[in-house]
């Protein structure tokens, strides 16, 4: 164990399997996020009205375009499982990396729990429509998590191919709904009169407040870089898959807003559990209802699936570096997956899926994501300062630097304020948690970490160090 450098004659190392192409990256990114179109985003309409929902959709879209650009540049250079975690380790430092690793695990595990809760809720709704009241949701929540964990355990290629199929179906369901409604296939006409008669029920503050859930349209797209060690050519596939993903999502988000706002009174939309399914109910077309039910199920499964994939990669990477016990850094000798991390995170997801209300879980996920985006801003600046263009080989260089960074920082600040309106306590509890965890890491856990070995990229010495 003492010699960590591979030399000739040493036994072969176990590595994650390099089998993924750009389509899998697209499926991982969009798969995690598309569920946001099927549930959750509409709370932004509740927080600020219909116009606020649309503004939030596009402003959050801008925020995530910045995220995707910045992330693509760094990730195409730091290609390692753990994504932003490995970036932080090389660019900012170990403690930041530990925090980013926790952001990732928390954001994805909470999102996974939220998805499982939604599956239970949707099945309960359908059972109710069929005259069976009081369905016990727990077995379905547990089954969803267990099945997807098992799929992840068995190998990444099957997992993400499965994701590709169900994500594509869920995306096509949105397009179909849009086209049918647009061609007059709805029993009830589109009505946007609330946009003119009651444009901003809360005034401007409502528009800012709406941004909180506007993030939900895209949350998780940055997860694409978790797959860096499993992609055949990361420098090309990761930027390509991520950019294609954000474009897909911008289209889907705008269509979703249009159909839902036109078909559902905003007062109802603002608190609906499954808005796209409700829009299909309003059209009165039963095949659309079935399609959107399938779409909702598939998008939640795809999302939970991607979350298990990403959270376990982050946890695994931290174990490998001894930020967490090395026990978690194990790779399955046959399936080549981080199997111990996958199994370990199952009960954690279950604790939250079975014990906490949906909006709390969602807010925790959003907050962890938001802290991660804030990190990306100074990470990017430090990356360009420590290794200026030309000093190392970058797979992709994003244009207009530092404009995207500045825009991202401003939007993050606004989003913190939006979360503060209504969920300030959670924000404080969450920050408190990360502060305590940071002190614990710096003063206790870091003793067990090898110093120089953490820097694994074949780069020159950073400037100024």
């Amino acid at each position: 164990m003492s010699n960590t450098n591979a030399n000739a004659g040493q036994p072969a190392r176990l590595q994650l399997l390099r089998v993924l192409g750009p389509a899998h990256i697209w499926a991982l990114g969009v798969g995690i996020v598309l569920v946001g179109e099927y549930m959750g985003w509409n709370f932004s309409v509740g927080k600020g009205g219909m116009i606020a929902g649309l503004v939030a959709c596009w402003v959050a879209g801008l925020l995530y375009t910045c995220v995707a650009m910045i992330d693509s540049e760094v990730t195409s250079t730091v290609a390692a499982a753990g994504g932003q975690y490995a970036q932080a380790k090389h660019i900012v430092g170990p403690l930041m990396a530990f925090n980013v690793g926790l952001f990732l695990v928390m954001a994805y595990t909470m999102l996974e729990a939220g998805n499982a809760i939604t599956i239970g809720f949707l099945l309960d709704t359908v059972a109710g429509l069929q005259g069976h009241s009081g369905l016990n949701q727990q077995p379905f929540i547990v089954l969803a998590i267990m099945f997807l964990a098992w799929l992840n355990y068995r190998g990444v290629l099957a997992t993400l191919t499965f994701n590709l199929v169900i994500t594509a179906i869920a995306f096509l369901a949105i397009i179909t709904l849009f086209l049918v409604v647009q061609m007059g296939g709805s029993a009830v006409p589109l009505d946007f009169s609330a946009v003119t008669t009651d444009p901003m029920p809360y005034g401007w503050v409502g528009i800012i407040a709406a941004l909180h859930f506007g993030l939900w349209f895209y949350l998780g797209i940055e997860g694409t870089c978790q797959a860096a060690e499993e992609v055949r050519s990361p420098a090309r596939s990761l930027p390509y898959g991520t950019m294609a993903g954000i474009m897909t999502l911008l289209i889907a988000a705008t269509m979703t807003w249009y159909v839902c706002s036109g078909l559902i009174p905003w007062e109802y939309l603002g608190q609906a559990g499954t808005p796209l399914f409700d829009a299909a109910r309003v059209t009165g077309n039963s095949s659309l209802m079935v399609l959107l039910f399938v779409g909702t199920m598939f998008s939640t499964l795809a999302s939970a699936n991607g979350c298990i994939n990403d959270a376990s990669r982050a946890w695994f990477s931290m174990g490998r570096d001894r930020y967490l016990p090395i026990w978690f850094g194990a790779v399955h000798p046959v399936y080549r997956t981080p199997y111990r991390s996958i199994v370990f995170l199952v009960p954690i997801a279950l604790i939250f899926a079975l014990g906490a209300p949906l909006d709390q879980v969602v807010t925790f996920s959003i907050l962890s994501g938001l802290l991660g985006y804030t990190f990306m801003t100074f990470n990017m600046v430090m990356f360009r300062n420590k290794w200026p263009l030309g000093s190392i080989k970058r797979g992709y260089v994003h244009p207009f630097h530092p404009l995207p960074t500045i825009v991202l920082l401003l939007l993050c600040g606004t989003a913190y304020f939006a979360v503060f309106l209504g969920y300030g306590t959670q924000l404080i509890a969450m920050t408190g948690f990360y502060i305590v965890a940071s002190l614990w890491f710096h003063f206790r856990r870091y003793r067990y970490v090898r110093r120089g070995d953490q820097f694994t990229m074949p780069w020159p010495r950073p400037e100024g160090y």
Partner: protein
Amino acid sequence: MAYKPPKQSLGGQIFDVLTLLVLTVGALYIPLYLGLAGAAKTPAPIENPTWEALGQNANEQAQWAALGYTDPAAVNDMITARFDYSFSWSALIIMAVLVIGYFILVVRLSDKEYRDVIEERFGPKEE
């Protein structure tokens, strides 16, 4: 000379994981138990609700009907419920200080650790 970390016992590893778990679960459940979590809308129902008084036009009434609501009284609360966005500036400032302070703390401590990493990886700094 490279830093040699001590070998951690199995008990220590389990203890470390449990510490993190307790912290995580605590951060989620403490606000819930204290009843501080979540923002609720307050409904302001109106007297003798009709669709017109609630500001719903003919199309919107058809939409409500499709969603299963034919009686305006049933949606009176839903339509009139609003969030309360009044907030205290002191709470906002506490939050801002906490978040910014957190990032400063993490970046500074990280930088200290990072210098060790770079020195061990690339050798002592050349002046």
